């Protein structure tokens, strides 16, 4: 089997589905007695299992706390484990039930939002109840998000746990907004593919054994890496009913679902043969009342079609279905800590041929947009390994997102409304009194693997300035375990012999997790040459400092314990620029004059600073 798509299919028996309370509570004659709801929910679970097994796919059954009180659900899990090899695991979703509410006296249901004391008590309750039912502890668990404190606690108490659903990719302010500002999964900034979380922060992959939290994490669903960047993640993933939610179907057809699956298969090209899918559909998505505009029949058909596609791939030897526990073992055998995850993702929905390149390692998650000349449009400094606690009693009750330095949609990017700057990393080129920005040069990219270095090579772009035409090519080089990205801007040719163009490699950044600004006070900007250094303590005063022959321009952002720097060999000038209240950003820049066949090389470096 060459580069099989590795698949985790997860089902959870819910006795009181998430959808049920709102649907029944809001009238419309849909109210059902709880016994009937539990029956329907278990039947949906049974149907999902049947569809998977019919297609030769084994599953991971994630028992909910509520289902552990159902003899029928427990018996079903045991039977399917014995007959089909399904793993019996334990989810921390699906907590609400009579027993839970009587004990905890709350309607909260998201494990990461509870106080530490409640998290510990709930974990003990559900794990011990699981043991009581099955006679062993689970190897796998999960929720929409598992914070680092929670994972560390589970590993300390139940060391046999080795796999967890630990985040929903890019489910943050966009999901909150889409849900009429009522769905508090603020979880942006994590990996899109499996990873080993660090003990310090779940989103940030471990750099070594010391940081290893002991689990292999998988994301909740495999999502479209372009559509999710500017849209609700819950419309664009390997969840057939999510595709229906996005209205991405016509005449009962939804080729988009299969395009997502196939593009994930294609990611093997960038990851030394590794490619992965996860499908996890809660029973509420296949309920008899229909969901969104889709009737029950279409909800079920979409699940059957999705699973049939996986089954067909398996029959062709192009897919390997695993339980979560099996996958954790496989992942640890095939990956090392510094191994990056790469994805050169193309638009498969809007017809634009736009490409994003995503790169994730223990130091950073970075997104590059080829539609903006290869500008960096998202940057998460994992190097800081922020030990951010979440839940009641901490500073962040709900917000579990890993902070960004750059997020071109939340903080404007290249285009602003006629004042100030937005977060972006790009390059300005000037000649003869005219200037342009590579953000305005749409291009495409190609990937290559040089062993220790992954390379993203962009197609050359043409620029016209003051009667001169030049061809410029960008190359990104990601060296494993370096915490730095090398950026090469090369002038391939110019129409004016001997002409020198001024290149300004720059990065405009701030910090945050949402669309709204944070206080930039305490940020320190510094520019350094071999024998001098100048600094600015951020005070919203529009100041700039520069040095000739600078070797680095950097920002210390203590709020996120991060130092970000741009380094350069051969710069004529380096600068740092403070923002102002209407533009709460900072800019780091390196300038050089280069001509035909010459290259400006800079390094973007991320470090922990506390």
């Amino acid at each position, binding site marked *: 089997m060459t580069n099989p798509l590795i698949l985790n299919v997860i089902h959870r028996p819910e006795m009181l589905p998430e959808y049920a309370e709102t649907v029944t509570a809001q009238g419309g004659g849909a109210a059902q007695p709880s016994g009937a709801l539990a029956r329907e929910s278990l039947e949906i679970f049974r149907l999902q299992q049947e569809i998977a097994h019919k297609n030769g796919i084994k599953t991971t059954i994630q028992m909910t706390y509520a289902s552990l009180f159902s003899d029928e659900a427990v018996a079903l899990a045991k039977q399917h484990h014995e007959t089909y090899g399904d793993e019996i695991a334990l989810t921390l979703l699906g907590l609400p039930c009579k027993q839970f509410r009587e004990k905890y006296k709350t309607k909260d249901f998201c494990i990461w939002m509870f106080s530490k004391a409640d998290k510990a008590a709930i974990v003990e309750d559900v794990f011990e109840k699981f043991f009581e039912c099955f006679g062993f502890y689970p190897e796998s668990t999960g929720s929409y998000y598992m914070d680092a404190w929670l994972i560390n606690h589970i590993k300390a108490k139940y060391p046999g746990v080795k796999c967890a659903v630990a985040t929903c990719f890019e489910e943050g302010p966009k999901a909150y907004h889409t849900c009429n500002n009522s769905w508090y999964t603020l979880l942006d900034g994590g990996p899109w593919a499996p990873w080993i979380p660090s003990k310090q922060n779940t989103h940030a992959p471990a750099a070594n054994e010391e940081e290893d939290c002991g689990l292999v994490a998988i994301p909740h669903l495999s999502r479209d890496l372009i559509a999710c960047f500017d849209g609700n993640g819950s419309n664009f993933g390997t969840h057939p009913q999510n595709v229906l939610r996005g*209205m991405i179907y016509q005449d009962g057809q939804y*080729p988009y679902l299969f*395009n997502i699956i196939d593009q994930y298969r294609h990611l093997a090209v960038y990851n030394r043969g590794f490619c992965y899918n996860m499908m996890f559909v809660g029973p509420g998505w296949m309920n008899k009342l229909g*969901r969104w*505009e889709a009737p029950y029949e279409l909800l079920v058909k979409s699940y059957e079609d999705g699973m049939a596609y996986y089954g067909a791939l398996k029959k062709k030897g192009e897919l390997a279905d695993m339980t979560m526990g099996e996958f954790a073992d496989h992942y640890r055998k095939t990956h090392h800590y510094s191994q990056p995850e790469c994805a050169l993702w193309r638009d498969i*929905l*809007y*017809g634009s041929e736009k490409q994003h390149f995503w790169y994730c390692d223990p130091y950073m998650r970075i997104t590059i947009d080829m539609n903006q000349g290869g500008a960096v449009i998202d940057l998460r400094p994992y190097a800081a390994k922020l030990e951010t606690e979440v839940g009641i009693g901490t500073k962040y009750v709900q917000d579990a997102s890993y902070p960004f330095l750059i997020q071109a949609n939340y903080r404007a990017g290249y285009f602003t409304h006629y004042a100030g700057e937005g977060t972006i990393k790009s390059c300005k080129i000037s000649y003869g009194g005219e200037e342009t920005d590579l953000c305005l040069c749409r291009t495409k990219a190609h990937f290559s693997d040089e062993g220790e270095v992954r390379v993203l090579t962009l197609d050359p772009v043409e620029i016209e300035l003051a009667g001169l035409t030049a061809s410029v090519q960008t190359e990104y080089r990601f060296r494993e375990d370096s915490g730095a990205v090398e950026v090469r801007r090369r002038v391939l040719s110019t129409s004016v012999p001997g002409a020198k163009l001024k290149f300004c490699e720059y990065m405009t950044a701030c910090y945050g997790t949402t669309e709204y600004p944070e206080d930039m006070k305490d940020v320190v900007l510094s520019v350094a040459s071999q024998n001098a250094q100048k600094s600015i303590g951020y005070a919203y005063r529009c100041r700039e400092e520069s040095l000739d022959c600078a070797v680095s321009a950097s920002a210390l952002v203590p709020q996120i314990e991060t130092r970000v720097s741009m380094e350069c060999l051969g710069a004529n000038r380096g600068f740092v620029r403070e923002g102002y209240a209407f533009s709460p950003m900072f800019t780091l820049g390196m300038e050089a004059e280069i001509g035909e066949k010459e290259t400006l090389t800079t390094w973007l470096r991320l470090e922990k600073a506390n």
Partner: protein
Amino acid sequence: MAQAGKGKLNYRCPSCFVRDIDIDMFYDAQKEEYYCIRCCYHGSEADVLEKNRLARFRYRDILRRIERFEV
């Protein structure tokens, strides 16, 4: 007039959908129309379905099966 209910399916407001907001509409049986409690959209089931069709304008590849992922 009796209070509104949910209708036979939980239709979302098509006007809000195109601005990335999922909000269920309620059904006014007397006027035989769905209406949004957030924005001013209201319309019959046929109008909702028509607007939902229009909302798909951005999905140019909605029916395209893609086989090559390198561009």
